[in-house]
C-alpha cells in the first residue's frame, strides 16, 4: 500500500515546500493535512510541515518541519520532530538537514558535457557556437532543449540550477552568483551586464578547454549544493518512507551504478539487469536452457 504523506502549510510559507515536496513525495500519496485529517482519508504515515507554528495540531507521526531561526529549531526539538529542514548554514550546523532554497532534482537531468552537445548540434544542423540567453521562470521543453544544446548560455533567472545540472557552460550575473554561492570562473563565469555576459558566453563557446572544465564543475556544484534528491532521500529515511535497500550482490551492483550517477533509463542499467537477472530473479517456471543465448551478436554462444 502506498504511504500517505501529508503537507501541513501556512499561507505564508506554503511556497517553500513546492520543489522539495515534488521530490520527497515520489512513491507516496501526497495530501494536504486539512484533507488528510478528514475521516474519509487514510491516516498519514508522515507529515511535512512548512512552519513550526502548525506543530501543535499535527498527529503523532514522524514529522519534518522547516525552521527559520534558532528559536524555531528549539521549538521543533521540543515537539520531538524527526527532521528540521533549513537552507541556513547556521541552522545546518545545529543539525538541520540542508534543503537548497532554489534546488533542482539533479538526477532527473542527464549531464551533457560539451563534447556530447557538439555531437547533438551537428546532428540537428545547429551552429557549432550556439549561444542562448535564458531568463525564463519555468523549465518548458523549449528552454530545457536550448540549455541542453547550447555551447554556452547566459542564465540569470531561477533556471540557473537546472542549467548547471545539465552541464551547460554558464555565464550569469553577480546577483544570481551570490544567491547560489557560485564562485566566478569556477562553476560559472560572472558578467556584470548583458553585453559583457553575451561576449563572455561567445568566448566560452569557442574555448573548448574552459567550457569542458566549467561544465564539469557546474554539474558537481549542482550535485553537492543544489540537489533536492539528497535531502529528500535523507528525510524519507528518517520519516520511515524509504523502501528497504537491496542487499547483497544486487545491492552492490545498484550502488556502483548510483555512485556514477547513472540515469534510470541508461542502457548500461538494462544490460546490468539482464546480466544478473538469472542470478537474482525468481526460478523459471519452465526448464531453462542449459546455456543462456548470447545477448549480443559479437558474443559467441557457450559451447
Amino acid at each position: 500500500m502506498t504511504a500517505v504523506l501529508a503537507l501541513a502549510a501556512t499561507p505564508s510559507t506554503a511556497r517553500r515546500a513546492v520543489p522539495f515536496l515534488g521530490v520527497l513525495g515520489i512513491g507516496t500519496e501526497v495530501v494536504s493535512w486539512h484533507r488528510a485529517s478528514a475521516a474519509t482519508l487514510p491516516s498519514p504515515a508522515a507529515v511535512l510541515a512548512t512552519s513550526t507554528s502548525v506543530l501543535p495540531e499535527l498527529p503523532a507521526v514522524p514529522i519534518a518541519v522547516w525552521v527559520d531561526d534558532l528559536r524555531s529549531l528549539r521549538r521543533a526539538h521540543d515537539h520531538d520532530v524527526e527532521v528540521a529542514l533549513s537552507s541556513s548554514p547556521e541552522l545546518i550546523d545545529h543539525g538541520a538537514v540542508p534543503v537548497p532554497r532554489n534546488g533542482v532534482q539533479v538526477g532527473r537531468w542527464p549531464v551533457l558535457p560539451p563534447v556530447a552537445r557538439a555531437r547533438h548540434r551537428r546532428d540537428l544542423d545547429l551552429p557549432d557556437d550556439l549561444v542562448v540567453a535564458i531568463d525564463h521562470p519555468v523549465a518548458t521543453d523549449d528552454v530545457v532543449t536550448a540549455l541542453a544544446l547550447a555551447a554556452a548560455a547566459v542564465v540569470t533567472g531561477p533556471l540557473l540550477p537546472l542549467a548547471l545540472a545539465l552541464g551547460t557552460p554558464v555565464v550569469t550575473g553577480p546577483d544570481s552568483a551570490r544567491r547560489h554561492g557560485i564562485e566566478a570562473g569556477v562553476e560559472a563565469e560572472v558578467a556584470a551586464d548583458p553585453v559583457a555576459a553575451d561576449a563572455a558566453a561567445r568566448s566560452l563557446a569557442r574555448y573548448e578547454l574552459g567550457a569542458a572544465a566549467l561544465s564539469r564543475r557546474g554539474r558537481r556544484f549542482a550535485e553537492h549544493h543544489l540537489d533536492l534528491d539528497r535531502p529528500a532521500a535523507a528525510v524519507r529515511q528518517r520519516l520511515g518512507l524509504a523502501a528497504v535497500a537491496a542487499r547483497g550482490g544486487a545491492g552492490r551492483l545498484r550502488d556502483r551504478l548510483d555512485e556514477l550517477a547513472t540515469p534510470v533509463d541508461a542502457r548500461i542499467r538494462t544490460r546490468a539487469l539482464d546480466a544478473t537477472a538469472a542470478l537474482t530473479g525468481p526460478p523459471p517456471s519452465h526448464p531453462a536452457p542449459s546455456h543462456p543465448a548470447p545477448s549480443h551478436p559479437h558474443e559467441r554462444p557457450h559451447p
Partner: protein
Amino acid sequence: MDVLVCATQVPLRPHGPPSATEELVADLVGALDGAGHRAEAVLVPAARDQERLLDAALAWRLIPLDADLVIAVDFPAYFARHRRKVAWLADHDRRDLHAGLEPGPDPDLDRTWADDLRQVVDWDIRALSEARQRFAVSDQAADRVRRQCGLSVATLPAPPPFAEHLRPRRGGRGAHVLHVARPGVDERAGLFLAGMAAASRQVPGVVACLGRSPGSVPGDLERLQLGRRVQVVRSVRPPALVDLFAEAIAVVHAPVGADQAPVTLQAFRAGVPVITTADSGPVLEWVEHGVTGLVTDGTARAVGAAIDRLVADPDLAGRMGAAGRARVADLGWERVVGSLTAAAGR
C-alpha cells in the same frame, strides 16, 4: 607497497608481438618490482562496440582490488574502484570515443550514439575524478581528456620498449633509412616507401615489421621499383631491431592517430634523427624541426628531400641524433615509478 597495474586484456589475439599497452604494462610492473614494490598486472577484456562499451567499466567497479595502490592505464580500467587510484592514460584510451564523434556506419546505432556518448563522458569524468592524480603518456592524450572531461591531466611519457639496449653506433655514416611498422598502428609505410622513391640518392631502406608486414608494402615495393633497395624484415625483435636502429641514418616515423611515439623515442635513444610529418601528433612533441629531426608537409617529395638532406650531410644527421639523445636523456622508469607512487600519497 603492493601495486596493481590495471589494463585491458585482448584475448585470443593472433600471434604477434605485444601491443604498446601490453608492453607498457609489463615494463611498468617490472620497474615497480625493481623499485622494491610488489607489483602485478590485472587485465580484464573489454568490448569496443557501442552497445557493450560500458560493460567492462561496470565490471571494474565490482572487482576487489586489495592493494596499497592501483595504477590504471587505459579505458575502461580506470573505472577500477580504489581509494588510492592513479590514472596513467596510455595508448588508444580515448580514441574510440573520439571516433564516435563521426557518423557511424549503422544509422540506427548512430542515432543513439549521442546519448551513449553523453553517458560515456559523464562516467569518464566521474571515474577519472576519483584518481589521486591523472597522467597521460603524451600532451596529445592529456589535451584530449582536458577538452572532453574538463579535468587536469599531467604529461608523463613512457620510456620506449628496450630503451636500455639502444645506443648510438660507434662511428660511421649509417647504412640505411629505417621505418618501423608496429601492429595495430597506421605508421604510413606507404609514405616512407614513396619518400624513398622520391629521394635522389639511392640509399638503402629497411621496413622493420614488429609483426606481419603491412598489406600494402609488397605492392608499393613493386610499383615504386624499390624491391632491390628496400628490405622488409618481418617479426623483428631485439637484438636485431636494436642493430637496425643503431645502423640507421634516419628513421621515418609518421603515425596516424597514435597517442604516443615509441619509435621516435627509440630512434632518439639510438642517436638517430627522425623524419616526420606536420600531422603526426605525439611525434611532434619530440621532433623539433632542424634540431632533432625534420618535419615535412607529408608529401613524398618532401620526405624524399628530407632523406636526401640527411644522407648528404652526415654531420647534420649526427648533430640531430645527438640532440635527440639528449632530449630523452631523463626519460626513464625511475621517474615514472616515482611520479606514480608519489601521486598515490597525495
